[in-house]
């Protein structure tokens, strides 16, 4: 369902695209909620209650959801691979270790294809980036409404569970790589790095300003293209998920059950494109539930069994009601299995390429 809390589609979408932000409200900001207006006298660190407050916080804010999910996923990566590393020995590998070794071998092969020097940092960096970004992207396959809606019941207003749809996260990763690029450029090339910036592509002193201008832009374009590519892909995919959810709803089994409940109990068929079918669905559901209750009252059906059958009916009715949305969400998710893996891989390969360029002395 599109949910009843965000009343309109626009609100629903912008709600889904707003992070949970903890930041500093500046002095003099007028905070309004529930019709009251509160004047902030001191600069205050607090959770933002609306998009306006997020704007007012500006730079001094942290996306709590992005940070928590990305740190949590990073911890899962670290834990899983640490466990594999603890188990790793010359004996016959099995289970998870097999898989971890497969991933390590794949990353190692990719690094060796691109980067020909010896470096203790780049292979583990590539592994971390690949698996971590893959896990962050993987969060997209969780139905878009599920976690935010559940957390809303728990009192958390905003929640974006896919860290890689947050440009701070992707640009943070890209800047991390960029810092390493600069470090290795200076470490390997020394003064040659400055000469490279000043004397390519036109090897004449008169062209130094032009060269510097072009090369610095080229250099800065690397982390931005790296971060924005991942962000753009993930963000666009997420929006498609949200749009499908706007039209059809996406909460997995719970949503299907809820949909059935909604159809049968309230006859709420407003959100479907095919009202006639929904009315028929409601009628069928209503008749089935009434029959079950009647059988139970007559003593021909145990109460426990009746409850199970009613629940099953809800699932079936909700499933039919949500069929189109379910199929579209599912189809897009299947397509996205490819996208999330590919984007993680591209980020890793480009990081390696940039770092290996930093090592090449001309």
């Amino acid at each position, binding site marked *: 369902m599109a949910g009843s809390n965000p009343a309109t589609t626009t609100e629903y979408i912008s709600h889904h695209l707003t992070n949970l932000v903890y930041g500093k409200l500046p002095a003099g900001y007028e905070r309004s909620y529930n019709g009251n207006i509160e004047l902030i006298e001191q600069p205050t660190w607090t959770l933002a209650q609306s998009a306006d407050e997020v704007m007012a916080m500006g730079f001094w804010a942290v996306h709590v959801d992005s940070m928590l999910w990305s740190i949590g996923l990073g911890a899962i990566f670290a834990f899983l691979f640490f466990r594999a590393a603890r188990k790793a020995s010359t004996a016959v590998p099995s289970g998870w270790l097999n898989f971890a070794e497969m991933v390590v071998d794949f990353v190692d092969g990719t690094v060796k294809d691109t980067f020909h020097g010896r470096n203790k940092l780049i292979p583990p960096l590539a*592994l971390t980036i690949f698996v971590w970004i893959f896990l962050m992207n993987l969060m997209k396959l969780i139905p878009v409404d599920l976690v935010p809606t559940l957390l809303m019941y728990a009192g958390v207003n905003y929640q974006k569970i896919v860290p890689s749809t947050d440009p701070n996260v992707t*640009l943070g990763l890209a800047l991390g790589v960029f810092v390493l690029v600069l470090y290795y450029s200076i470490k390997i090339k020394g003064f040659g790095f400055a000469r490279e910036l000043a004397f390519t592509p036109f090897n004449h002193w008169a062209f130094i300003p032009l060269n510097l201008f072009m090369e610095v832009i080229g250099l800065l374009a690397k982390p931005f293209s790296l971060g924005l590519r991942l962000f753009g892909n993930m963000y666009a995919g997420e929006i498609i998920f949200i749009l499908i959810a706007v039209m059809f709803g996406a909460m997995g089994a719970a949503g299907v059950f809820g949909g059935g409940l909604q159809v049968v109990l309230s006859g709420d068929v407003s959100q479907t494109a095919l009202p006639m079918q929904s009315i028929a669905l409601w009628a069928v559901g209503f008749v089935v539930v009434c029959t079950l209750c009647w059988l139970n009252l007559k003593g021909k059906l145990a109460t426990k069994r009746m409850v199970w059958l009613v629940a099953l009916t809800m699932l079936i009715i909700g499933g039919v009601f949500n069929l189109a949305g379910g199929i579209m969400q599912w189809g897009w998710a299947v397509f996205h299995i490819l996208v999330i893996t590919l984007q993680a891989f591209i980020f890793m390969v480009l990081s390696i390429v940039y770092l290996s360029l930093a090592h090449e002395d001309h």
Partner: protein
Amino acid sequence: MNINLTLFGQMLTLAFFVWFCMKFVWPAITTAMEERQQKISDGLDAADRAMRDLELAQDKATDQLKDAKQQSAAIVEQANKRAAQIVEEAKQSAIAESERIKAAAHAEIEQELARAKEELRSQVSRLALLGAEKVLGASIDEAANRDLVDNLAAQL
């Protein structure tokens, strides 16, 4: 889509996880993998060597078996020859023994014969004297005719 402190938070997080991976994950797994690769290739080499050793041992065993067969054949042949020789020798000695026994028997027979002849001769001479006495009706001077009769007896 605000750029804020999250950017630096993410950079620090990345630095931490990369450090963790570099320190605790990557070396352990790659070292184990390399060692295992080494072990496997060593094992395969050892298996190849063992196969070659086995072939050599089989060849050697075949050769030894052939030698043994030849030797045993030679021994059997020798034994057969020896047996034949022994039989031959036994035959020869048996023949010789039989010849000896036969000769001894012959000699004895000859002796017996000679003795019988001697005895017969002596008896013949006595019988002849007795007969002559009967014929002549008188006693013959034994001593006088003794030579005559003995001569006669010797001529028998």
